[in-house]
């Protein structure tokens, strides 16, 4: 545990210099600083979880800001956040401080309280900690969670006076700078995967195995299973009013079409209807490509986007395909009528040449040496590569993972936001089928390690906002945020590299530009995130956010 604390604390940003005791800067200084105070941190965590004595000096003073309840009351979840001003209390009440850190008196009586230090920064005289608390009757089903940020001043000796090195650290003061609590009165989500998929034993068997296991058993040199970039698409393929699900699979495993039955279970019919491709498949769509009212299938099979038209018997016939100029596979696919001729055209985002590690992005923070994306114009079912003519090759190959069409300027044609790993994203504004990248002027370049994007009028002010999924990496922050990092680079370059591990971005439309409101909104830290989307999770009319996270989990508990 101590090692994990050290790691967490090393992942810090250096605070502003104090006149008498500058915070540590170099990694070894930070480590030594943390090492010297690791015992105190252990005591603090134990006390917060109700397992030990309070590690505070006599007369230690505390300050906790007042809270303001959410404007959304009455749902299954109750939310409270600290207000920008005002104090709930100042004083020396140690149980009061614990209540504030854990989420108020409501947490009392819950048997399981888990406290985790998720971020920490050495500051002059102590730490600034970010704490995460989960509490409930059982650790598997917490009903209460809290996040708080607290600044602590540490001194040696119980009396708070400087003393010998052999004396233990104690806390002389604690100031909670921000907190938020959430509790649930009712269950908001129930997992029903077993009930929905379980009756189809073959589908359950294919989906109940992690990609690491498959990767060991499929002879696939591209490691398509191992990285797990296989998409899903919803659509009502049989017109019964119930959505169905197309599931992409890696090379050697058949794609699946899970058709929803009246009792809510699904049955995989992909082989019966001609959708069970064995090729590595990434992006998929279920949409009506030919306007006959039936859902057709679009699948990114390697570097080819294949369109299969659903016939009157429910079988999917290969009706057309768009072939990329080289074998770099297509990742995300999307469809829109970009030229206004009444049919749907296809966009494919492409990331690396053929295998994940074959292409090195150069420069890391603004790479343009990846494969080009592709736009295929639908000419009566024949798909013609018009990427160059449409202006979508501008700016070079940007290691793109997903393109998302949206008429954000409400001029009636679809614009395109392209999310790029290793650099700047692009906002291609559509003007009669010709695109121009205006990401910089709209403030949505969001330079970083982009993975996905979601559009929504989340604040219900009549325009579309954007949430971009990026990478948040503790290791990246630990290295790149040191003052001594990459001295051979300019400050501008260092700032750009730091953005690679900064986290997700909430870009709010305000007038003619989008403003990054991630920090104030509290939605930056989505971990190593991929396909975050807006979704109204509590059905209160306002979109919330869900961010899938994690890169590669190995069988051992350690992490790089």
């Amino acid at each position, binding site marked *: 545990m101590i090692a994990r604390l050290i790691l967490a604390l090393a992942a810090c940003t250096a605070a502003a210099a104090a006149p008498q005791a500058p915070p540590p800067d170099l990694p070894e200084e930070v480590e030594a600083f943390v090492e010297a105070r690791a015992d105190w941190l252990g005591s603090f965590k134990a006390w917060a979880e109700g397992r030990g004595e309070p590690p505070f000096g006599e007369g230690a003073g505390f300050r906790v800001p007042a809270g303001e309840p959410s404007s959304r009351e009455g749902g299954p*979840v109750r939310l409270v956040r600290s207000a920008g001003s005002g104090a709930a209390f100042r004083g020396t009440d140690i149980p009061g401080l614990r209540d504030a850190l854990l989420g108020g008196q409501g947490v009392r009586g819950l048997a399981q309280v888990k406290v985790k230090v998720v971020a920490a920064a050495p500051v002059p005289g102590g730490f600034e900690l970010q704490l995460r608390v989960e509490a409930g009757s059982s650790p598997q089903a917490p009903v209460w969670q809290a996040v708080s940020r607290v600044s602590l001043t540490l001194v040696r000796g119980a009396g708070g006076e400087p003393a010998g090195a052999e004396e233990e650290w104690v806390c002389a003061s604690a100031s909670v700078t921000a907190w938020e609590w959430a509790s649930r009165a009712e269950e908001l989500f129930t997992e029903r995967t077993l009930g929905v*998929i379980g009756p189809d034993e073959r589908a359950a068997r294919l989906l109940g195995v992690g990609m690491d296991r498959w990767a060991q058993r499929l002879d696939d040199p591209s490691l398509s299973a191992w990285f797990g970039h296989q998409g899903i698409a*919803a659509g009502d393929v049989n017109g019964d009013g119930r959505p169905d699900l197309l599931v992409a699979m890696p090379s050697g495993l058949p794609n699946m079409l899970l058709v929803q039955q009246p009792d809510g279970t699904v049955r995989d019919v992909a082989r019966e209807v001609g959708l069970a491709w064995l090729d590595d498949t990434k992006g998929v769509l279920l949409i009506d490509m030919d306007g006959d009212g039936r859902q057709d299938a679009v699948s990114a099979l390697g570097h080819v986007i294949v369109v299969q038209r659903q016939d009157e018997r429910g079988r999917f016939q290969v009706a057309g395909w768009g072939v990329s100029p080289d074998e770099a596979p297509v990742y995300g696919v999307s469809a829109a009528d970009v030229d206004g001729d009444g049919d749907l055209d296809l966009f494919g985002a492409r990331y690396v040449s053929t295998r994940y590690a074959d292409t090195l992005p150069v420069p890391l923070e603004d790479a343009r040496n990846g494969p080009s994306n592709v736009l295929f114009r639908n000419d009566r079912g024949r798909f013609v590569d018009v990427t160059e003519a449409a202006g979508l090759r501008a700016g070079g190959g940007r290691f793109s993972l997903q393109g998302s069409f949206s008429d954000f300027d409400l001029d009636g044609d679809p614009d395109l936001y392209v999310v790029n790993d290793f650099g700047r994203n692009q906002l291609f504004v559509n003007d009669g089928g010709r695109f121009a990248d205006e990401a910089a002027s709209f403030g949505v370049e969001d330079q970083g390690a982009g993975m996905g994007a979601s559009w929504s009028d989340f604040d219900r002010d009549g325009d579309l906002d954007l949430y971009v999924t990026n990478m948040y990496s503790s290791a990246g922050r630990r290295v790149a945020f040191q003052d001594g990092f990459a001295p051979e680079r300019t400050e501008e370059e260092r700032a750009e590299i730091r953005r690679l591990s900064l986290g997700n971005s909430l870009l709010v439309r305000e007038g003619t530009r989008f403003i990054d409101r991630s920090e104030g909104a509290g939605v930056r830290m989505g971990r190593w995130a991929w396909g975050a989307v807006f979704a109204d999770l509590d059905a209160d009319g306002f979109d919330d956010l869900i961010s899938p996270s994690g890169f590669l989990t190995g069988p051992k508990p350690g992490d790089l």
Partner: protein
Amino acid sequence: MESGVSWSGHERNVAWLQAGAGRFVDVSAITGLDQVEDGRVALRCDWDGDGDLDLWLRFRSGSTLRYMENRADPDRHVAFEPGRPGASVMVETSFGEESTSTLLQTRTSDGYLAGVRPRAVLALRPGEEVLGAEGLAERRLQVVARPAERKAPEAGSLPAHELPGRVVLRTALPLPPGRLRELGFRPGRPQLVVVADPECEVCAGVLPSAIDAIVEDGRIALTRLNTRNKADGPAVRWASTTAAHILGPGAELDTPLSLLIGPGGRLQTILVGALEWDGMSQDLEWFALEPVQGALRASFDPPGASRWFHGMARSSAPLAQELLEAGFDSEAAFYSK
């Protein structure tokens, strides 16, 4: 990573609820949306038709697909389903003295690798009324009341399934003639090479009956190698190093270890652990005895109904070269042809 350590692994999904005034609160744990597996895709859709947005989540590790049913169940919601993507509508609502204009738009993709229905929904708060759809051409929206509840499928996630220790090579690997001679291979007949340790439980307990079935079937020649037999040493080492290299880092190699060689002298399948006659006979018919099927790339799916779009197998030269460079065989002249 090759040693099993993670790279930004063990990271949980994150969910936030809007708390008003542009602020969000983390609710990952209390909503059960904080799965620890490596998340990739989140797809929102009203799967059960009750007006709220359910979630299908895709993962790299663990169970790779999960369905999370939303229990929020709004009394009423607005559904905008114009039948095509790229359509917009501005919905005007009143809620007490507050009036709101909300832009809904349909599209085909969302987030990362999520294909969505061109349909938009807006849950209505108790007391919220729709005044109309203003400003844009699209007016195809309906206010929908909550339907009668239907019986919900069983709760829970998919059980983790164990895989048989069987790897079908996508491209059959030609073996050097010298190696084939050492193994007693005779062209035209498939051969199974079984490496067994007399002290391993599976070798002593389960393996004999499977071998009996193979012998009885009569279509496969059998070569048995004993790890305790000095004379078998080179062949045992060849079999295990070849299997280890092909299966890659992290592969669980154990005895019995079996290699199925096709009638043309190409390595087709590697089996680790107890032999399973059903799977073995499938491989035999699929790869070893049927030349057309054998030319197709392998998969974990019965032959016939599934298919490859990109057609025939790639060349096996890169894999052969890789083995050669790794020092697993010395007949450079054979592989260089």
